[in-house]
């Protein structure tokens, strides 16, 4: 805390030495980023917000204002409700699972001395996969006829017949979840590994003297000191999982029969395949609110540790 106050005093002193030329410098440095984000993100969002109050379709591309009709239809649509619940469930489970996997791997790698750099490199491999390819690869793994999972289970004698991984609702959710967790674990592991390695070894030596076991050391030293790293990891993780459209759309496409429908698969189905842009825009707006709220919650934690 003392360090924090000191830093802000320095910053303040530094700030007070500036003239009016400073505000021009700030403007010039910020403007390009703000302009490009406004052009690619903010402006299209405003446009789609407007479209969400119209009956815009591909066949009739003239936006006609229809008040809240799209939002009313969305509330009455049982598939949308199901997709909404599926999405929340999917994000909650995959974020937690990838976090726990990453935490385990980071702790395990941190305590190996030999071959640590090799382990760290191997850990990063899933990061280099295109999400589309992860989708194709896991779709094949979980294919009930030729897929590796059923194939291995059969050769081990554990399975007679085949498990319909991508057909049954819960099995299919599990399969797309597994692919998502696989792709997102490395980033968590690498951040938490860096955090663990930054903890002073003297703390552990002191704990050894007191006769603490590994679990006690983890609970009392590692976990509390990892706090800021955990927040960073969770924030990055939730951003990435919320953008996990590629995997789901390729593995199941929300099907069969809407069983694995997530907001990310349902919105394009409505907007493009059924060409109801207005309704799709309304749905995508609900999606934006959900994801932004999810991220905002984590980000507030992160901002607390930032000196502003």
């Amino acid at each position, binding site marked *: 805390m003392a360090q924090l106050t000191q830093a802000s005093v320095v910053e303040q002193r530094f700030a007070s030495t500036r003239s009016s030329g400073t505000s021009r410098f700030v403007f010039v440095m910020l403007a390009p980023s703000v302009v*490009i984000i406004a052009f690619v993100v903010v402006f299209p969002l405003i446009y789609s917000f407007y479209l969400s109050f119209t009956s815009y379709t591909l066949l009739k591309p003239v936006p006609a204002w229809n008040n809240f009709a799209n939002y009313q239809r969305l509330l009455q649509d049982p598939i949308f409700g199901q997709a909404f619940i599926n999405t929340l469930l999917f994000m909650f489970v995959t974020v937690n699972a990838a976090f726990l996997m990453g935490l385990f791997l980071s702790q395990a790698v941190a305590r190996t001395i030999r071959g640590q750099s090799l*382990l760290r490199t191997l850990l990063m491999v899933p990061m280099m996969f*295109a999400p589309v*390819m992860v989708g*194709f690869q896991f779709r094949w793994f979980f294919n009930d006829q030729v897929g590796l999972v059923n194939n291995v289970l059969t050769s081990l004698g554990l399975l007679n017949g085949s498990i319909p991984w991508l057909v049954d609702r819960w099995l299919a959710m599990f399969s797309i979840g597994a692919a998502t967790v696989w792709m997102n674990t490395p980033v968590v592991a690498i951040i938490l590994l860096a955090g663990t390695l930054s903890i002073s070894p003297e703390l552990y030596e002191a704990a050894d003297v007191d006769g603490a076991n590994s679990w006690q050391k983890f609970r009392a030293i590692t976990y509390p000191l990892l706090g800021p790293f955990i927040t960073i990891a969770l924030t990055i993780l939730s951003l990435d999982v919320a*953008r996990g459209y590629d995997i789901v759309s390729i593995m199941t496409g929300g099907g069969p029969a809407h069983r694995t429908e997530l907001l990310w698969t349902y919105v394009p189905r409505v907007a493009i395949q059924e060409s109801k842009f207005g309704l799709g825009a309304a749905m995508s707006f609900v999606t934006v609110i959900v994801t932004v709220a999810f991220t905002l919650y984590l980000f507030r934690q992160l901002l607390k540790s930032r000196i*502003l």
Partner: protein
Amino acid sequence: MRYSSRRRLSSALLDLLVWVVLIAMLVPALWLVFTSVRNPVEVNAKPPVWVPRQLTLDGFKPLFGQSTEATGAIPFDRYFFNSTLVALFSTVIAVALGTMAGYVFARYRFRSKNALFLGIMLSRAVPGIALSLPLFLLFARISQAGPLKLIDTQLGLIIVYTAVNVPFTIWLMDGFFREIPTELSEAAQLDGCTEWQTFVRVNLPLALPGLAASAIFAFLAAWNEFQIAGVLTRTVNSKTAPVGLFDFTGQFTIDWRGMAAMATVMMIPAIAFVFMVQRNLVRGLTFGAVK
């Protein structure tokens, strides 16, 4: 004595477990590479053939202008060129813009700074699904109206990927610049450096690891992006490699081997790029976290 030998045993078991988990995590990657060099009969063999018994590079033929029984020739050179161009340009621009903004967020006080920072970060949380459609409509209108063509061009993708990658770069660089002592900047300004010179000559060289970490994330995101590219690209003029993977899918069949071959080649630049800058990745990612 007995206590310590038990501890050594349990630690050896844990090491073993780590390797098992890591190798399990590597299976999808290894399987992909193996599939690309397999004989077609092995691809869907029952029971599974783990290590290919007979190596063949036939799976790579469609990428180099020859056709196989499964797939015709694919304009892979175009896809690869588009991907490289789009990823490199958008990475360079996003890192440059994000570094400038991150520096200002770290060092200056100005009105509604917190709100602006939060707003920029939240713009990254907007899912592609909410963006791709209105972006398409918007870009189509701009392309119709004037000389600026944004649909089915590399320029359109470069603009989009730059905007998508700027927020994360700002976040990383903000944390990074906060770690550099302000005394250095003060001294530079006393010596008569302008604000720009203070930024470029004093702070920027010290923030290079942060630039590297930002560049990794921006490059991988642009190199692997599919959702928006799938909407904005139409032909070989601008199609990137992830969109090109769909050339291996037919209505009912997928040429797994050809697809694996293309994905293997696609991973090479990503791996090369990550290896070039990975030394700085961990430091860059977590620099701002510990105070």
